[in-house]
């Protein structure tokens, strides 16, 4: 019986390995997708900002982030800047991130700004 359970677990694990892309944790996703513009510390001064026409938002600023609801943050990550009448430079990430991953990122942003 224990053997059967072990095989089942292994089988399910293999199925998971062969399925579509895995969800990643918020810290890894922030690093992979957001650092390039919002910066290593989230202060909005990323590698790409030099020639940008609009500066990325400072995620560490309670003032800049406090005015945005969680729903707004979710929407702008998922659908991009234009969805909330902001810059086209903020892309929609709905093809890279699942809704759950975006919800996790919103929580991560709240930690960065230490605001709600």
């Amino acid at each position: 019986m224990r053997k059967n359970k072990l095989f089942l677990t292994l089988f399910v694990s293999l199925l998971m390995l062969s399925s579509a892309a895995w969800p990643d944790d918020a810290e890894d996703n922030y690093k992979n997708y957001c650092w390039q513009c919002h910066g290593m510390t989230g202060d909005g001064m990323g590698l790409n900002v030099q020639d940008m026409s609009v500066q990325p938002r400072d995620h560490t600023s309670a003032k800049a982030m406090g005015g945005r609801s969680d729903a707004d943050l979710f929407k702008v990550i998922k659908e991009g800047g234009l969805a909330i009448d902001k810059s086209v430079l903020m892309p929609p990430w709905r093809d890279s991130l699942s809704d759950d991953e975006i919800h996790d990122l919103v929580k991560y942003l709240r930690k960065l700004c230490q605001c709600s």
Partner: protein
Amino acid sequence: MKYLVLLIALSVSGVALADGGMDILQKRCVSCHDLSGPAAQSVQELWQRKGPDLFYAGSKYNAEWLEKWLVKPRRIRPAGHHSIQHIKPGDKRDMIDATTLRPHMALSPSDAEEVTEALMKLKATAEMMGTTVFKGGSISTSFGEMVFDKFNGCMACHEIEPGFGGLSGPEVYTAAKRYQADYLVSFITNPQAWNPKTPMPNKHVSAPNIQKIVQYLQALARENRDEKK
């Protein structure tokens, strides 16, 4: 009989040439490049891949450019393959940490020829390619820049000339030299079909504008901005 011997000799040398290229790839390239797929399924796995996946190289690269580049490689991504691994905090913004960047190995002309021949046999799946193709046509660089930058914000991550534009993505002023036009259309249409964890977003650019962007990349390539560096 003479012709038969010649034919057999040519066939054998042809096989040897093709095998030679894959042999070089397996011995010298596989530690940094994935040759068999699939693409990385997590960001951690993505970061472990030191160079671009090559398992679809034959659907991506222009052979002529690839062979020349392998003999005389130069950096295409200002901040390396994964920019997050080559940056450091700066006074005004994050900066490239050049001490962490390593040059790509150069191949002899004969090795480059064999490797290119082997790589061009590695094709993408129909799912990756999708159904859209480049339809031809041309555009001025000024109008193209409007579509590329103003309407879609692509310059945020890509340089359109040396020293102007974003640094996390590959330079685009040589993109049409490097890549096949159908690949460019396909990748911009659905980057995640090629690489689910790529930092390149799907901006849902309209199909006509994707054609215009590829026309723009071709116009940029014709200006040879890389040679004016």
